[in-house]
């Protein structure tokens, strides 16, 4: 350790001693670091916030900053990438058409990882501190603990967490600026059951037994949907033969399939966000199928699912409460533009949804006349009926979430279509609801 006795005594006539030199240098260095660091930090913050405040007054030519809190790394990275691409495409279009109220838009992407509470808070605080005009969050926490940050700051935030808890939080706290850009997951229970009953009533399909076997990954999204489905089916007196949770990724389904094959259920319901897992499952199922209708949740919406599952996927049913309307001209145009820009087609949910939401917000902001007059913009959003690539967006008062069509409204011009697809000959065929359908349900080959 350096001894602390007063030094420099031997300095005398030798000029600067090493000790003195060191002391001087240290003082200067530390002082410089503190002053410089603090100054730099303040200056950095200051200049950033000042650009944005001038931006906020509306008279500037600075680009308008848009925040994106998307899971670009971590387990939901494939969704995150779709989201960011959808947002970017919409912004590029708006910019190419002269921008919003004459100003260009600029996307600031932050990583929401696995939506841990601290990460979400950090990311949203950062966006709020930069005074962004709007926030496009893909997923959020299921406990809404980060919502107050945005509620307080006032700018509109759009998310697609698809969770009734989030919208109930919005309603209970009278929040006016947090919108869920799709219906909640509770629709999954009712939607598919209605469809199953239609199949049975029309004679298109006769169940081998009134029973289901449910496999789900244990992430909230898949789990919530699986539970909604199970509850809904049980209400209709269907027996649940198995309810299995697993942790992504899983590639070997030997054990599950033994159980399924030993006691074949009428419906196999598989819910996971990981396309590889569901593709593996259907491939292994197809090796020796049981007389069961196979419903796979969510993952088939990701284009890679078909690449991975190939022919094995033919006959699989899946649905989404938010999805690009495959046969629709508006959607086709979007798909073309997306494919051109990113040299891959978009998935069926998140890219189109975020693309729509950015456009929806931009129109509302234009109506409000100033993207930074948050109260006006939020009111405009709340009153909007917007027809996008995923159907109609209109927000239920109070919960600020989209209506599902046909589950809660029979008016397709107001409700967001709850889509059910069947994969036929390697193509996604939209079999429900009308008027958006592009084909009809067919019995899978193993049931014919």
């Amino acid at each position, binding site marked *: 350790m350096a001894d602390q006795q007063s030094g420099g005594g031997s300095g005398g006539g030798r000029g600067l001693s090493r000790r003195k030199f060191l002391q001087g240098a240290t003082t200067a260095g530390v002082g410089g670091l503190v002053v410089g660091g603090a100054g730099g930090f303040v200056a950095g913050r200051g200049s950033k916030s000042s650009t944005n405040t001038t931006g906020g007054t509306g008279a500037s030519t600075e680009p308008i900053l848009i925040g994106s809190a998307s899971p670009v790394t971590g387990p939901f990275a494939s969704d995150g990438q779709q989201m960011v691409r959808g947002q970017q495409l919409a912004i590029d279009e708006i910019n190419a058409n002269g921008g919003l109220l004459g100003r260009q838009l600029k996307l600031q992407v932050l990583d929401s990882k696995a939506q841990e509470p601290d990460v979400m808070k*950090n990311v949203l605080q950062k966006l709020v501190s930069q005074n962004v005009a709007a926030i496009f969050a893909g997923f959020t926490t*299921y406990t809404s603990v980060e919502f107050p940050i945005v509620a307080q700051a006032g700018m509109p935030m759009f998310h697609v967490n698809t969770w009734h808890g989030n919208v109930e939080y919005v309603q209970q706290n009278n929040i006016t600026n947090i919108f869920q850009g799709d219906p909640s997951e509770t629709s999954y229970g009712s939607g598919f059951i209605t469809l199953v009953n239609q199949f049975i009533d029309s004679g298109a399909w006769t169940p081998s037994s009134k029973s289901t076997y449910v496999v789900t990954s244990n*992430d909230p999204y898949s789990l919530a949907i699986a539970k909604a489905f199970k509850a809904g089916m049980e209400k209709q007196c269907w027996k649940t033969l198995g309810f299995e949770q697993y942790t992504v990724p899983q590639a070997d389904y030997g054990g599950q399939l033994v159980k399924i094959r030993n006691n074949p259920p009428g419906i196999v319901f598989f819910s996971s966000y990981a396309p590889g897992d569901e593709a593996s499952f259907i491939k292994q199922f197809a090796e020796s199928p049981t007389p069961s209708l196979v419903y796979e949740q969510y993952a088939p919406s990701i284009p890679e699912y078909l690449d991975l599952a190939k022919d094995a996927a033919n006959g699989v049913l899946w649905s989404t409460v938010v999805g690009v309307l495959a046969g629709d001209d508006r959607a086709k145009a979007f798909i073309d533009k997306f494919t051109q820009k990113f040299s891959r087609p978009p998935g069926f949910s998140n890219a189109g949804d975020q693309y729509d939401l950015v456009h929806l917000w931009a129109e509302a902001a234009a109506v409000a006349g100033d993207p930074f007059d948050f109260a006006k913009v939020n009111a405009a959003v709340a009153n909007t009926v917007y027809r996008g690539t995923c159907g109609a967006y209109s927000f239920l008062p109070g919960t600020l979430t989209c209506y599902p069509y046909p589950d809660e409204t029979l008016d397709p011009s107001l409700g967001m279509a709850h889509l059910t697809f069947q994969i036929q000959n390697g193509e996604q065929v939209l079999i429900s609801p009308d008027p958006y359908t592009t084909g009809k349900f067919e019995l899978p080959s193993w049931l014919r």
Partner: protein
Amino acid sequence: MNDASRVGKLPKLSAGSRLGIVALIAIVAAVPVVYTNHYVLTFLVTALITLVLNTSWNFVLGIAGVWNFGMLAIYAIGAYSEGLVMLHTGMPAPIAVLLGGVAAGAFSVLLAFPTLRLFGIYTSLLTFSFAQVVQFVIVNDPKGLTGGSFGFPTVKGLYPNLGPLAQLRAYYWTVLAVVVVATFAVAWIRSSRLGIALRTIRDAPAYAAARGVSPLKYRMLAFAISGFIAGVAGGLYLSYNQSITSSVMGLTPMSIDVTMLVIGGLGTLFGPVIGTGLLTFIQQALIDYPGVQLSILGTILLIIVVFVPGGLVGLISRTRRRLSNWVEEDETALPTTEEAARSTEAGT
């Protein structure tokens, strides 16, 4: 070498160093008065909570030398216990935080038993397995107590009645106080009988056994203490964020925490402070480049471990030693004109 005479005392510091520490605490404590930016304060509070966790982890990993990679599970157990206590008994938050710490300490002691017979890498794998089991239990909780993968149901924080800025400041100071207390506690323990015993068990197990130093007793104590501190950190996390998900104990957070410890200097007193501070700064600086963040952190970790093995604290103390040698050389040398000239040259 005069450890024995200093048992139970804080490490001897010069007046200057003591003044420096007090000044540092004062400066850090003043931050929320000067900066009111909510974003900065939000991540600083999170960083301070992480620092509490890292302080306890450093104690086990660096000072006791037990490769405990189950620390994040202990941290989570603290948080979930606190939450359960609050939800089901209506206990006030500050008491619940302490109870969470106690629960975490208890689990930590349980974990200490099987590690006794293990060495090195096996310990890390055992504790890591423990963490995995805890995570699975939390996620797949059949009774719905933990909220599963949805995250723990929202709880009231420590300061539910304050406004946003006041809340941030209150949390900041609360957690800072815990950091200071935890750091001093670890410093004190390090030079206490317990600390010396732990270091003996770590560095010379045979000698420790010969002297009758019981690994069972001391390791359990070490685990209990570190578990308690980590549990309190978890409780602070839950209170501050009002919720927690099991992904806070995933591989990515773990690698970031380990990086912080290693960069700062494992087993040193101020390593966690420096590591946590630096990495938080880097993470926030890279927040606009989410894709490359982890690659850069990985690279930094690699470089530090390879080229600066003792971490930054090790580097600083080595530099200080070299400088003081340099000064001593100067002062003990005969003041020949030649040397005087050289030192002046070096000085300018």
